[in-house]
């Protein structure tokens, strides 16, 4: 066969030639048109960082170890990475519009995964975001609190500690396993108090088919390394003297437990009642701890409420739903603060009941995740 080497070589040369010419053009364009030089980002009017222009603000901040919450990884689909950008960001992009309220647009709030650093920027980063980072920990205990809630104790790496406010949550990383082809993150409230240096507790309820809960309940073992990032959230114990109404259902116990143990530990003596809803007696947990806390916090009452007690439970306590029980304890709740945790339906019923008792929106605290 007459194999045409000449032709083969020309074809390779020509295609490589075209590709080379185009790549050179792109490299030149990148170095000239696409080169925005070093840009200065001023954070909260005090810190200045110099970054490479042209990248997104999200990745520029990340390279400076400032982690802005982002669930989609910068694709502009979760809308979490909102930041106030005072100057230098240009107009709001069409890709940001679906995530911004009109009031946010007038307030210069932008999605920092979409904003590119093309000029010097002035941004406002909320203080607590500086504390957010990735942590590595070892699972040191794993116990069944009820039939479907497991308690995890995580020990941070040596000399590491997490600074958080009682009530805040973290995002637990679920590694690749049978149910997920990529690492995913799920939010859980921290159940332990901030002063437990180097440790955090989580309380996780099993949801059939749930990616994270299945992993925790069926795969995780004592001694395993787990990763999480945080702390996040506006749900935390406020620094006031107001009387407190805490309400939780199911694994919503966790952040309330953090708040109460924190109060006992720090000697914060506020008047507080904690209403906790469960179905039957077997679903109640942490009851001994609550009895202990009743001794430590002078004016604290734990009020467990069962919705469907079974006959052998011999339950002499309250029966029903928390929102209906509430008026038995309060004629008015004016001037009090309320801390809630539970599923969205339960939350809505509690909020309605509390408003009936005269509580304002800004006196009711809860995490808006299911």
């Amino acid at each position, binding site marked *: 066969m007459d194999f045409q080497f000449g*032709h083969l070589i*020309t*074809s390779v040369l*020509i*295609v490589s030639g*075209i*590709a080379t010419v*185009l*790549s050179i*053009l*792109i490299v030149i*364009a*990148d170095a000239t*048109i*696409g080169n925005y030089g070093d840009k200065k980002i001023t954070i909260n009017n005090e810190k200045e960082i110099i970054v490479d222009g042209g990248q997104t603000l999200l990745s520029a901040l990340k390279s400076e170890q400032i982690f802005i919450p982002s669930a989609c990884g910068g694709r502009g689909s979760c809308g979490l990475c909102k930041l106030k950008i005072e100057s230098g960001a*240009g*107009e709001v*992009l*069409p*890709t940001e519009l679906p995530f911004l309220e009109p009031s946010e647009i007038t307030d210069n709030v932008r999605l920092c995964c979409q904003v*590119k650093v*093309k000029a010097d920027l002035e941004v406002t980063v909320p203080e607590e975001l500086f504390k957010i980072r990735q942590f590595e920990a070892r699972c040191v205990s794993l116990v069944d609190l009820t039939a479907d809630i497991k308690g995890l104790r995580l020990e941070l790496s040596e000399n590491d500690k997490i600074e958080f406010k009682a009530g805040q949550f973290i995002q637990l990383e679920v590694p690749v396993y049978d149910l997920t082809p990529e690492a995913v993150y799920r939010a859980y409230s921290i159940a332990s108090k901030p002063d437990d240096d180097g440790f955090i507790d989580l309380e996780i309820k099993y949801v059939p088919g749930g990616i994270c809960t299945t992993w925790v309940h069926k795969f995780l073992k004592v001694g395993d390394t787990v990763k999480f990032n945080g702390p996040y959230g506006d749900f935390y114990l406020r620094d006031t003297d107001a009387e407190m109404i805490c309400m939780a259902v199911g694994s919503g116990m966790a952040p309330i437990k953090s708040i109460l143990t924190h109060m006992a530990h720090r000697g914060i003596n506020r008047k507080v009642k904690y209403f906790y809803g469960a179905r039957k007696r077997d679903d109640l947990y942490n009851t001994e701890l609550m009895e202990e806390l009743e001794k430590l916090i002078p004016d604290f009452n734990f009020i467990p409420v069962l919705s469907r007690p079974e006959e052998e439970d011999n339950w002499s306590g309250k029966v029903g739903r928390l929102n209906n029980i509430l008026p038995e304890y309060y004629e008015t709740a004016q001037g009090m603060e309320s801390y809630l945790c539970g599923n969205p339906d339960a939350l809505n019923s509690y909020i309605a009941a509390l408003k009936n008792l005269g509580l304002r929106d800004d006196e009711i605290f809860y995490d808006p995740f299911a």
Partner: protein
Amino acid sequence: MEGSSPGTFAIFFAAIFTSNILLTLYLGMCSFLAVSKQVKTAVGLGLAVVFVITTTSALNWLVYYYVLIPFKLVYLKYIVFIIVIAAFVQIVEMIIERVSEKLYNALGIFLPLITVNCAILGVSLFMIIRKYTLVSSVAYGLGSGIGWMVAIVAMAGIRQNMKRSRVPGGLEGAGITLIIAGIMSMAFMGFTGMIKI
């Protein structure tokens, strides 16, 4: 033969209506389905496609007749055309981003989306198969781009008005969009016989 070599204007006109690249050949479907929720974004994407299709058809025509034919490399046209389109889109995006923020906001952010729009490669290949001249190729590219834009803007208009309609559960999203596209394409294909290109 007159029928086999239509005039430039006929090609331009046919590319928009009777031989609409999207509705008669179903090329460029992915972005058509994904970005046809709002008229405003559809117009932006449409303009970007018009611009890129027109310019790359000219570029690819030159590359084909002045590089590939003399070196007898026509069988490499697929890979070469794709490289040219991808590189061109990259550079245009950088230029627009630098030069005009307004234009970039309206058009530039869609450019990376259309590098892989098959309508663009389709136009480059058809103009070769049909042996168009440079001028006809540009007219064909421009027409196809406008036709693609007409189709996606019409679809976005329909979908915007359908927000309040009750669509059977299983057909929501891409399903009903494909059905609408089918009905639209029947309307366009009805006139296919008028001009042969």
